[in-house]
């Protein structure tokens, strides 16, 4: 994957609640939060578990081989943010992790034509290098 010299799209902002997720993404890995009390996996990460309210949340590294199933999508024909005008139509898709279906992650679906996207299609996570330091998790159809 080529590193773009000028990335015009918004870059994820790291903060106290999400830093481990984005730090892992920069290493091309997926880390998700889980609750030590109710044992739920959580996404997006936050300061506590949205299911039971427990603050006993920790991170689990799921590695780089992430398979998922597409749960829904929207095909965007207009840019609503800077940078996307060069990249239309954009597919924005949610997929549920095959191993942890409660974890549903929203990304763009790359390497797929709008007419080929289908709910239920298998996808896998790929990481787009957007700057020298940063990488963005994305979905692509499973090879």
């Amino acid at each position, binding site marked *: 994957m080529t590193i773009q010299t000028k990335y015009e799209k918004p870059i994820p902002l790291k903060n106290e609640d999400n830093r481990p997720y984005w730090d892992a993404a920069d290493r091309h890995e997926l880390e998700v939060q889980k609750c030590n009390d109710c044992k739920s996996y959580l996404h997006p990460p936050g300061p506590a578990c949205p299911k039971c309210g427990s603050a006993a949340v920790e991170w689990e590294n799921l590695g780089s081989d992430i398979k998922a199933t597409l749960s829904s999508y*929207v095909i965007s024909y207009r840019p609503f943010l800077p940078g996307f005008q060069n990249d239309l139509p954009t597919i924005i898709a949610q997929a549920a992790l095959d191993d942890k279906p409660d974890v549903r992650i929203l990304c763009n679906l790359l390497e797929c034509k709008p007419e080929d996207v289908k709910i239920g299609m298998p996808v896998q996570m790929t990481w787009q290098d957007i700057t020298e330091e940063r990488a963005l998790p994305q979905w692509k159809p499973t090879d």
Partner: protein
Amino acid sequence: MDKISNKYAVVGVGEYERSRKSGTTPLQMALVAARNALQDAGLEASDIDGIMNYSTGGDSCTSHEVATYLGARPKYVKDISGGGSSTEMLIGDAIGMIDAGLLNTVLIYRSMNGASGQLVGRGYDPNMLQNALPGGSFIIPYGSASPSQWFGIFATRHMHQTGLTKEHLGQVCIDFYEHAQRNPKAHLNGKTLTMEEYLNTPDISSPFNIHDCCLELDEANAIIVTSADRAKDCKSRPVYIMGITPRETHPHAHYWSDLDQVAADHVAPALYQSAGVKPEDIQVAAIYDCFSWVVLRQLEAYGLAPRGEVGDFVAAGNLKMGGKLPTNTAGGMLAEGYTHGMNNVLEIVRQLRHEYKGSDRQVEDCEIGICTGWSGPDLAGAMILGN
């Protein structure tokens, strides 16, 4: 039925003319809408002892300013940040405060230069959005910043699961455009829509094209809420609040991990219980319509059409005047105007007063109506009104 049922009423409604360019401030528009609501109720500014307002990202004017220039000296002013369903939330607050004996008569308004000023549907500064929206950094980098995209992803899944088609979405638009042709104050009065035109319009965010999206306009609306006892002294025919459920939430604020449920699903049981009526008792509806699909999903959530059959329900013409459930009879936010739902409240009040009697706009003999709010899949609120 709960203890507030029929003890409070909407006694005044008023608006400022809708346009794409008001050429004036939200304060000026709010004052005109408020004066119109006072006149409608036959009340003076001095009768108002509470004023409440909602705005999104500072797009309005404050209740304190409106109080000042209305010449009212209320005991209480309140401004909240919110969008759809905030009308229902503030009416709930007003009822609570009147019930507690703290206030008598409350003015609630929404004023915005939604076309010439700040536009909701076209996105905001990306870094501001990442910080402002819960989970923002997980959606904004993917180009997802418009409600048309957020709700589109729900709509795609719902259509996949239930067999709803693009034609069903189009039918909602066509019906509301048709209603707007009977309403001289509707922004799209004079602009009709056929299914062929609808289907030939390219999508903005699939499955939505421009007709599926609400009109962002410059507009102000105001309503006045008081007790049923005081309502007897008003000039207008009171419309009673039979039941109200201000807000209940989805599992996550803004990052919608579960596409199969929306907050309206959780509002409905409490709403009907509070009003002591069933979905089949509802004769006229004002369903929050920021997008066509949102109407279909709420008809299901509120039990107004069976899940899985809402497409057939709409295709059969049931939302039209003369149908089983005439809905958004002024054109709704798709064709009349958009003030985050308050214009739909004005219309349901006017229907239940039989204000259009003798014209083709009146839903004949309607006595019970529903008005829903939708801030998104995560927040909703609704009320049932009776005459």
